[in-house]
């Protein structure tokens, strides 16, 4: 799904917003505490997807003190279908939109999480710079230092301002002063820029000077490596698990492309080669970011044979994709890692996973 989103972004264009739009006429297929969801998709939404949607809404409530006042209707299309219908509901070149008046979201499947944050922050005239930054950050996007100055984008529309600067600046505000102040800022609505000093005690220009001086290159997404931990047997034996896949009931089972995905995390105690074996159809592996990423990274900074860091790619997080080998020896740095297990299709299933320190022949670098 991450790759779909990247694809969509590359293809789409920007245009004006629609002033009004008709009802999609889709049946409501899912209902959660805050959402009624109708979907025109070629696959189901899994229990884990609905849990993730609610977690986003709950995070906005807990961190920003903002919440939905009533249930929101969410209409979701596949990315392909959205290219046809998107302009009817949101205008050409958009991936989704949220109407506060209608209490409704129209969106491609790639942008559901982003739109949920807009819906969960029901402040209709919130300065776009902050509205879009909040939606990116709280939907779980990672953030990178932008190519333009926040002050130059502050008064611009969502269309004109671009994206990178607002996401990274809002993440910096969250990391530096906490989420409560971010909620206070959001409640200022269209005055969020002009009354920035009321919340932070310094002008936006002064904040930008501080931001330029101390902000890191990047921040991991808020949901990075949030999968449940694999059980560690002991330091020598590694990990072994049977992971159930039940789209209808599994609270951690999500739709991924043409199949299902479950994520797990584990901590590699010592850097080295580890053997990975699973009967899943494919796995994704990445090394988790542990906090703000200070040093800029080149895209060619790691070898194809190494498990890459989550922040190696942008906007989608990076991962190593492996399939086919019954036992695969891979080099891991020490630290927390995430494994995504993928199965084709949507029927209930269970897969085995085993990870252990490699015993057989492997390359060893000379100690310096």
């Amino acid at each position, binding site marked *: 799904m991450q790759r779909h989103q990247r694809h969509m972004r*590359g*293809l789409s264009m*920007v245009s004006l*917003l629609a002033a*009004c*739009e*008709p*009802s999609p006429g889709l*049946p*409501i*297929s*899912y*209902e*959660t*505490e805050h959402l009624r969801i109708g979907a025109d998709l070629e696959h189901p939404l899994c*229990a884990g997807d*609905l*849990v993730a949607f609610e977690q986003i809404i709950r995070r906005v409530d807990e961190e920003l003190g903002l919440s939905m006042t009533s249930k929101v209707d969410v209409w979701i299309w596949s990315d392909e279908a959205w290219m046809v219908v998107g302009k009817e509901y*949101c*205008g050409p*070149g*958009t*991936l*989704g*939109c*949220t109407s*506060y*008046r*209608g209490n409704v979201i129209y*969106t491609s499947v790639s942008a559901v999480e982003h*739109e949920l944050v807009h819906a969960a922050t029901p402040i209709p*005239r919130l300065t776009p710079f902050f509205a*879009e930054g909040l939606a990116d950050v709280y939907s779980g996007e990672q953030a990178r*230092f*932008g*190519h*333009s*100055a926040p002050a*130059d984008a502050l008064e611009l529309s*969502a*269309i004109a*301002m671009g*994206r990178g600067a607002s996401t990274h600046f809002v993440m910096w505000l969250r990391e530096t002063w906490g989420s409560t102040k971010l909620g206070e800022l959001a409640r200022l609505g269209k005055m969020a820029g002009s009354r920035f000093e009321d919340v932070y005690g310094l002008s936006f220009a002064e904040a930008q000077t501080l931001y330029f001086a101390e902000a890191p290159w990047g921040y991991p997404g808020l949901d990075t490596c949030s999968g449940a931990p694999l059980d560690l047997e002991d330091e020598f*034996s590694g990990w*072994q698990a*049977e992971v159930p896949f039940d789209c*209808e009931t599994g609270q951690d089972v999500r739709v991924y492309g043409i199949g299902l995905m479950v994520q797990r995390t584990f901590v590699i105690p010592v850097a080295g080669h580890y*053997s990975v*074996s699973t009967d899943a159809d494919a796995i994704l592996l990445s090394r988790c970011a542990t906090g703000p990423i200070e040093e800029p*990274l*080149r895209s060619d900074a790691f070898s194809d044979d190494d498990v890459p860091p989550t922040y190696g790619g942008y906007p989608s997080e990076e991962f190593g994709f492996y399939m086919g080998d*019954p*036992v695969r020896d891979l080099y891991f740095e020490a630290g927390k890692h995430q494994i995504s297990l993928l199965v084709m299709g949507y029927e209930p299933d269970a897969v085995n996973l085993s990870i*252990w320190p490699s*015993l*057989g*022949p*492997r*390359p*060893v670098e000379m100690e310096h």
Partner: protein
Amino acid sequence: MARRIQPGRLGVTQNLLIPLILITLITLITACTESELPLLDQLGDPCRSAYDKCLTDDTVRSCEAGVWVERDCASVCAELGPAYAPAGCDRECVCELVDPSGCTPSEATCVDEGTIAVCDEGQVLQPNSCSQICADAALHEVGCLTDVAGESACWCTSEGTGCEPSTTPQCVDQDTLGSCEGGIWTFVECSTICGAPAACDPFRLPAACGC
């Protein structure tokens, strides 16, 4: 918390037209927006980047301490060591080997079956014994091997090295089981254990050959 409703249960909404006049729309717009925003790309502007950009044939714009500064390629290449000299600019500084016929610093080459040589900063190959490299990692030598990508390294194995007697068996690869026998890692082909072709099953606890 999540409740799935069978499609059609709430079909009444299908024909419900929502009057959306003067609606407030928050849109997610594609990332390829053509923005007229000024870019932070001038010398002195703040930056966070690992990429340089050519300014002239022998200078680049480089992000140093969070600010774009101008650097000459001679100093950029000098940071790579004495083996490199500047050779123009093509997106970034081009640094060429002073001795093109010599080795590339930090590159490893197999000298023979048991020796690897690593190219030092002065383009001189420094040989090292794989047996020593493996011993330093508490492993036994397999030999110096070059993989399909052309990268050479000493390969080492746990076979024959010490292990805790309580350590459980593990698969070595698809066909081989490793067991701690008398405090020594011992590898046995599953076909030998089973008397017929068999694979190692890493999902058993402990791992075992699937005879």
